Structures are given as C-alpha cells and as structure tokens.
C-alpha cells in the first residue's frame, strides 16, 4: 500500500511538474497580454516533434535546448504577425484566433509526422530504473523533475533580477505607465509570449521522452493548466506554481482510492476554491 501511495505521489509530482511548466507559460502570456493561448498545448506538441526531428542530427541533449528555442521562434513570429493585432480588442477575438491556430498546428503536426504516436528516444543511461522495489524511479524521471525545478527557479530569478523581468512584472501591474516610461511594450509582449512558448516547447520535449509523441499530446495538459492558474490565483506566478503542484498531486492521490475520479477531482478543487476564496491562493484582489 505504501509503495502504491509513493508510486502515485511520485506520478503526481511528475504530472504536476508538467502542469507547472505549461501553466507558467500560459500565465505569463495571460498576465501581460490578456490572451488565453488555446494553442499552448499544440506548441508543446510541436516542441516534442521538433526534438524528434533534431535528435538524429544533434543528439538528445542539444535538442532539449534547441527544439524549445525553435518553437519559441515560431511562437514569436505568430505573435508579431497575428496575435499582437488583437491587443486591446474584445477578448473574444484573441480566444478565437488562438483556438483556430490550435486546430491548424494540430493538423500540421499530423500531416508532417503522421496520425500515430512516435517514440522520442531518451539516452539509455538515464532511462533505467534505479531499484527493483521502486521501479517507478528512473533517472529520466528524476532528471525531468530536476529540469523543471531549474527552469522554474531560472524563470523566477529572471523575472526578479533582470531588467527585462522587471519590465514584465511592471507591465503586468500597469502597462500604460510602463509604456509612458519609454519602454517598447509591443516588443516586451512579443518576447514575453516567446518565453511562454519556450516553456511549452520544453515541456513537449520532456513529455515526449516520458509518454511518446502524438498530435494531441498537449490537450490533456492544457485544461488542467487553466485550472492551475485559476486555483493559484490570476496574476500570480507563484500561485500558478502552487496550483499546478496541488492539482497534480491531488489527482494522483485520488487515483489510489478512486481511479475514475482522478480527472474530476481537479475540477472539484477548482469549484471549492472559487466558492471559498474566489481570487485563488495568491491572486491579486480585484484581478478577476
């Protein structure tokens, strides 16, 4: 029993780590650009597929960095040419645009790489189980958690200490003032979008190594990530982080006693949070 709980707890941590990567990117874009990026899960899949295409040429380790960067570049181009034209308009338009882009990216991946799932090969020396009793602990999964921890710490350090990070944080609070201070807000939003997509691409490569690639692989991560943002509190990245871990672990522990309910429990948590504390764990008052 203990082993089962540990197994599920660790699974929850892995899933939670994915939720965190996806929802942090979504949250950055939502906070600064006021856009819900429906295509986020498809950028994730694109990152995984790009790594698949790159690995034969440059190997796994460089691909882990290059594929997300390439995904971010594609995201940047899409933001500059399409999404940025809709800032300041009714949210219905950006919702529909990213929704359409999600369809297009999904079908493009299917067209290029096929309907069937593809395996993403991970170097042998990190894919072996570490022990017989704890078969679920292999080096790749530990490494995955490590990468997520490092990228999250890196992101927060970047937002806290770099000049651009400061501008992004200021822009979330008051974009007009930031613009009036002479900062190119348009560029800021585009780069911020690219950062969010980079995280999605990274999650895609990591998820590909864990569960393989398929054109819909992002869908199952996208909606719980919305919940992570709502539960954690809109406007707070630390809240998003907590939200992602909470629902990941809660879903995994529910799976121990009630396997069918592991997806539903995520939304029950959301309903309870909205009822008891509408702004979420760490949400700003008034940001709703």
């Amino acid at each position, binding site marked *: 029993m203990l082993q089962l709980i540990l197994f599920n707890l660790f699974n929850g941590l892995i899933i939670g780590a994915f939720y965190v990567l996806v929802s942090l990117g979504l949250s950055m874009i939502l906070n600064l650009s006021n856009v819900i990026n429906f295509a986020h899960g498809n950028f994730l899949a694109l990152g995984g597929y790009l790594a698949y295409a790159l690995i034969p040429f440059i190997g796994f380790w460089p691909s882990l960095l290059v594929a997300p960067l390439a995904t971010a570049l594609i995201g940047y181009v899409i933001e500059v040419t399409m999404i940025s034209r809709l800032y300041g308009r009714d949210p219905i338009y950006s919702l*529909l*645009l990213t929704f359409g882009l999600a369809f*297009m990216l999904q079908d493009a991946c299917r067209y290029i790489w096929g309907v069937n799932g593809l395996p993403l090969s991970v170097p042998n020396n990190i894919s072996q189980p570490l022990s017989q009793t704890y078969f679920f602990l292999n080096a790749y999964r530990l490494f995955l958690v490590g990468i997520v921890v490092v990228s999250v710490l890196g992101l927060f350090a970047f937002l806290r200490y770099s000049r651009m990070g400061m501008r992004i944080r200021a822009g979330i609070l008051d974009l007009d003032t930031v613009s009036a201070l002479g900062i190119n807000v348009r560029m800021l939003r585009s780069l911020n979008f690219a950062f969010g997509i980079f995280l999605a691409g990274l999650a895609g490569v990591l998820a590909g190594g864990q569960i393989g690639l398929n054109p819909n692989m992002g869908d199952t991560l996208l909606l719980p990530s919305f*919940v992570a943002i709502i539960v954690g509190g809109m406007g707070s990245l630390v809240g998003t982080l907590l939200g992602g871990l909470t629902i990941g672990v809660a879903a995994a522990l529910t799976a121990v006693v009630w396997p069918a309910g592991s997806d539903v429990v995520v939304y029950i948590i959301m309903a309870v949070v909205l009822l008891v504390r509408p702004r979420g764990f760490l949400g700003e008052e008034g940001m709703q």
Partner: protein
Amino acid sequence: MSATVIQAPGGDAPGGQLQARQRILTLVMVWAILLSAPLWLPLVGGYTSLGTRILVLGLAAMALNFLVGFTGMVSFGHAAYFGLGVYGCGLILRYVTASTPLGLLAGLVLGGVAGTVIGALIARRRGIYFAMVTIAFQEIFYFIAYKWNGLTGGFDGLRGFTRANLHLGFATLDIIKNDVVFYYFVLFIFALVVAVMGLILLSPFGRTLLAIRENERRARFLGINIERHIWLAFTLSSIFIAIAGGLYALLNNFADPSSLYTDLSGELVIMCVLGGIRVFWGPLLGAAVYVVLQDYISSHTVNWLFFVGGVFVIVVLFFPRGLLGMLRRRRDA
C-alpha cells in the same frame, strides 16, 4: 469620458419608423427562408436533415449570443449546457420513457440547473477571466460523460434510443421516419425559443443587459445589480442552449461526449462572430455558413481541421464584424 454619448447600437435599439419597417422586413425574409427550406434545399444540392442541423446549431449559437452579443460576457464553455441538453434528452428516452417532449424538458432542466449553479459561481468575473472559468467548468461535465460508462456509454456515447412520434390527440406527427415533418417540428421549437429570446431582449430586463454591455460602470452607478443580471442572463442562455441540445439528441438519436467538448464551444462562438454578434439573426447565418463550409471542406480533404482552423483565423483577422455586421455597417455609412 463621462460626456461621450453612447451611440445606440445598431438595429437592436428601439428606433424610428424606418427601423421598425426594416425589422419587419427582416422577420418576413428570415421566416420565408426557414419555412420554405425543405422545398428548395434539395434543388441546391442540400438535404432536409442538413437544414435541421443548421437550425439546431443556429439556435444554440443564438442562445450563446444572448450572453456574448447582448450581455457582453464571452462564454467559451457553452457546449457544457448544450451537451447536458443532449444527454438529458437522451437519458430520458433511453431509460425512462419514449416521449419526445419529456426528453426535451429533461434536457432543459439539466442544462438550466447546471447553468444556474455555475453562473452563480462565476458572475463576478469579467472579460478574459470569465471566459477562462467557463472553459474550465465545461470539463467537469465532459469527464462525467466520458467516465460514467454505465450510465452514459462513456467514450462510445449513448445509443439505443430514438425520438418518439408526437401524439397531439387529433393527429400523430411522424417525426421518426419523415425528415420534413421533423424539420417543421424543430422549426416550431426554434420559433418558440427565439420568440422568447427576442421578447426578453426587448423588455426592460433585456435593455438593462445592453446597458451593462455598453458601460458596466455607469449601469452600476444607476443602481443596477450587475452580478444578478449577469447570473440571470447566463442561466437563461444555458436554458436556451440546452433546448437546442435536446433537439440535437433527437436529430442524431445519439449522444456522445464531443457534444460537451471545448471544440464545440469554440465552433459555437465562431458561428456567432461569423454571422455578427451585434445582430439578432447573425448567429443563425453564421451557423449556416459554418456548417456548409465544414461539410464541404471535410468532404474534399482529410486535413480539413487545418482549413477549419484557417477559417477561424481569417474571420478574426479580416471579418471581425461578421457577415451581417459588415452589411449593416455599409448601410449605415
């Protein structure tokens, strides 16, 4: 800012004689097309059940537009209440009794109750955050339909029910086998719901919704309880769309989880925008264009999803006012 005069929004304002005449003209045109559809649809390469499908999805899109276009709140999760209408109707027909009106009523109640509860939870949110919460809530119902195999048939959907003929006392309407009779039955329900919707929009309550859409702060200063109005609008909209869902179950004799899924929500929103969200009949036209376009694209390429996505992008970037919205703009200019 406070001194700016808000221009009365297009044709949905109580206007002069010209506008009244235009409204009557529109009504006559719309109903002439809808009533005669089974006659000319086969001639232009369509079929009656395609017309019924457009009618049902058009009703769903108009119900959504009650909230999106006339209250100004964007719900991206309205497939939930549509799907609950589908399942409510299907479950009654499958397990309880073979009665078409009871099925529709059950769908209405199921969708309406869910809309009331969730509307209360989210009425304080605005803009993009409102949309986000509606998206997240819709997933609950999707998972219930997907996982509760014993009741709903899970992923494969709920089968084994058919719509039942209508016994009116003096006559029996054969809506099972006769597509045309079924079309007129759907049109009858459509007319009832659309009439109620239109009358609500013309009532003081409907005017208040427009006021909230145009300037929420000013409406609040006038002492209007904004949250309660939005809650009520959300509830009404979910009731209307649940009726459309019930009709959809009758049309397909089938209920499956995709009727509760995000993709359908997005499609309903694009129907509204495609036709024009500021125009009462816009979503119906949008539904017709979208359904025909999707039918056409998917019969010509396996990569239809790419092109449907392209339709979304093109509409948003180049025709954000929608077809009827552009027409009206040109006429006003």
